[in-house]
């Protein structure tokens, strides 16, 4: 037990303490102790920095797109998988769709480039058919849909697990009763299946809202350069490039702390809402 506790003390609570960086003008060769204490100056700078607000705006837009397009996708796939009766096919499809979850973002980005890039597979086909070419990769106009599509490709299958578990809990007798009452496929879905898994859907939605700003980091870090910061910068990459590329560690830490605090507030609010709706939330009261 001791090494585990030590780990949390050093790397989590130590890092928590490291947040004092946000209040100093950090100069690496002076070290933390001798750097000048500047109070809230980093935060003031941040609030007046258009690049910071650009990153906030991109993060919010991408998060909203993820919510609208990524959230329902696994539910749809789970409904499809659940409707399969033959278990061999079902298990095979499950094995296939879970796989991308385990691939790193470097590989996913490489695959998308290989498929959709200027000299990629899809453009090869389009060229053969004389249909011109699509410019999806490295194109600021299509960047946001692209990153959401990548997320769906990588995580949609994995996210079905929890929906499938919920679907298997729906009482078969309800379906029997519905069929006796003459309900067709669509009415069974609407009046039995969806109400049956409502608690899980609400819970996941609340959780997702709680981590609204967590759009991901590695995916954006890998692709930001190709489209430029105007479209590609999200809060996490803003922290990275401010800190490691521009050397403004104090300022970067302030932006990171800001995001962390908003995140805690969002999770807290989301849980309040969940409890209000009579669901369990991430933690119990």
């Amino acid at each position, binding site marked *: *037990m001791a090494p*585990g*506790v030590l*780990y949390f003390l*050093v*790397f*989590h*609570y*130590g*890092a928590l*303490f*490291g947040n004092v960086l946000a209040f100093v003008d950090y100069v690496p060769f002076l070290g933390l102790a001798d750097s000048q204490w500047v109070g809230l100056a980093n935060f003031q700078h941040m609030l007046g920095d258009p690049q910071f607000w650009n990153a906030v705006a991109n993060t919010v837009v991408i998060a909203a797109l993820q919510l609208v397009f990524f959230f329902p996708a696994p539910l749809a*796939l789970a409904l*499809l998988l659940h409707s399969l*009766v033959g278990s061999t096919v079902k298990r095979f499809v499950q*094995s*296939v*769709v*879970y*796989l991308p979850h*385990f*691939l*790193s973002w*470097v*590989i996913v*980005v*490489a*695959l998308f*480039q*290989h*498929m959709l890039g*200027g*000299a990629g*597979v899809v453009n*090869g086909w389009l*060229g053969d058919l004389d249909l011109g070419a699509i*410019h999806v*990769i*490295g194109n600021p106009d299509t960047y946001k849909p692209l990153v959401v599509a990548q997320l769906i*490709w990588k995580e949609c*299958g994995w996210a079905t*697990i*929890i929906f499938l578990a919920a679907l298997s809990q729906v009482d*078969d007798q309800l*379906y029997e009763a*519905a069929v006796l009452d003459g309900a067709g*496929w669509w009415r069974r879905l609407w009046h039995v299946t969806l109400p049956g898994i409502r608690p899980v859907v609400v819970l996941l939605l609340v959780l997702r809202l709680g981590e609204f700003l967590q759009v991901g*980091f*590695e995916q954006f870090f890998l692709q930001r350069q*190709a489209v430029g910061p105007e479209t590609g910068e999200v809060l*996490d990459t803003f*922290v990275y490039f401010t*800190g*490691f590329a521009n050397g403004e*560690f104090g300022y970067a*830490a302030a932006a*990171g702390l800001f995001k962390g605090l908003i*995140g805690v507030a969002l*999770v807290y609010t989301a849980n309040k809402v969940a409890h209000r709706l009579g669901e369990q939330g*991430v933690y119990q009261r």
Partner: protein
Amino acid sequence: MTYPAWQGRPGPGLRAAKAVALTVVVLLVLFPLWTVVATSLASPQDVIANGGWVIWPERFTIGAYAEILDGGVVTRALLVSAGVTVVGTALSLVCTVGLAYALSRPRVYGGRPIMLLILFTFLFPPGMIPLFLVVRTTGLFDTYAALVLPFLINVFNLVVMRGFFQSIPAELLEAARIDGAGELTMLWRVVLPLSKAVLAVVSLFYAVAYWNRFFEAIIYFNDQTKWPIGTVLRQYVTGGADLTGESAVVSAPQATQMAVVVLATAPIVCIYPLLQRYFVKGVLTGAVKA
């Protein structure tokens, strides 16, 4: 194929629609992986003739693999990743089991406040810059330990494992104690043999995370010869200007690049089927308890 009593056999139209949808989904996942493997095994002439990729290698060659496995950057990066993954997973597993077992036992001194402090870190994860500062102050900068120690215990894995340990009937442990077993014996002889499924899942999660980690090497290492495969892959395949991939003229390394992608993916695809039957259980235990 037996349909439930209430459900008749669906009409041919619906079944065809389902079959098409499933085929599309499966192809969307597998086809990109397939062309990458095919391209990596094709001869440079074929790749160039076809504009940068192939679906079926006409002239099959393992030249690309021979080239990158011949002791260069990629070979070393694969060894680094393998080492970090094996050592890291072992350490993580030992520490997670130890902490999860302690926290699963009732009446452990300080158990509840420690659990709360740990759950708080889940809510407020360490920021990139503060964590970097910690890595520097603890002297881990430019050491392989920087890829392991900051990620030693994952809270989700800890909660999954603790939940699993708590579900083991207390009578079993009580019986062992009466037979004179100490805590370590109980853990080793009673708890772990019952927990094979959760150990498999958690090991898989840790191993995949260690294998896939690439970003941290960029900020924690000055010395590029210590880079793991993911970081090298990023430079080879997605680094800098060729991310746009606008040019249709692709030079010979296309097969090489794809071979690097394959080598970075292969270990995951290989261990995945072995552990797959366990992880639905693991994910759900975690989701219910968390």
